[in-house]
């Protein structure tokens, strides 16, 4: 039963990934911890493996639909490791709670921007 629920949430994570262009880790991690008993670190790591496969198939489908700028995608991906290092340093210097609240504020601000943009007459 737990395995079925985990599979269902993984399916939903994939659908969300295809719809809005994220990897689905937001749903994969809780599926792995709650239903399959992995620790947080194991779940985040295993989720990364799933994200790679899901993003690979998703990107290939989007290329077929004509919705992939491969040069920009590679540039962003190749440049990300510097950011990861900065992120790890920040995580060790700033309190976790302050980080969570500042990212929540940023997420709400971006959501507001997207809604306002979608409301305009022509996009």
């Amino acid at each position, binding site marked *: 039963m737990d395995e079925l629920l985990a*599979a269902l949430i993984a*399916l939903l994570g*994939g*659908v*969300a*990934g*295809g719809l*809005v*262009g*994220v*990897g*689905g*880790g*937001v749903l*994969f991690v809780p599926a*792995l911890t709650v239903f*399959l008993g*992995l620790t947080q*670190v*194991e779940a*985040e*790591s*295993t989720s*990364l*493996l*799933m*994200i790679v*496969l*899901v*993003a690979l198939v*998703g*990107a290939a*489908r*989007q290329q077929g*639909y004509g*919705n*992939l*700028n491969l040069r920009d*995608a*590679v540039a*962003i991906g*190749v*440049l*990300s490791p510097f*950011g*990861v*290092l*900065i*992120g790890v340093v*920040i995580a060790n210097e700033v309190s976790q709670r302050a980080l*969570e609240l500042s*990212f*929540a504020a940023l*997420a*709400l601000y*971006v*959501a507001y921007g*997207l809604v306002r*943009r979608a409301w305009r007459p022509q*996009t």
Partner: protein
Amino acid sequence: MPSERTLKLVAIGTLAGIFSGLFGVGGGTVIVPLLIFWFGYGERLATGTSLGAIVLIGLLGALAQGGLYGNVHIATGLLLSIPAIGGVVFGTAIQQRIPQRAVSLLFAALLVAIAIQLIIP
């Protein structure tokens, strides 16, 4: 002197990496809105390109976690990827049939959900 476009790509890659390093996710929540706001990408092109970038970001993370620390449960991850891949094929297919602004609104809803999750301790 690199062009403004190059600098923006550097910024998006770095910010996505920071987000990934802090929260252990792929970074798509950062990449999609920035491609829309800074490059004027349509929603479909932004989400497709984001998935392409996530392949590389996730690969580096998975290799580091699996190779250095042995934290990746490979069999579990591969098995659970089967429904997830089915989902992404379905999700991208639906996305071609709905208006682009609906994708923006769905993304905004996802961001609000993430914000709530972060605010609740």
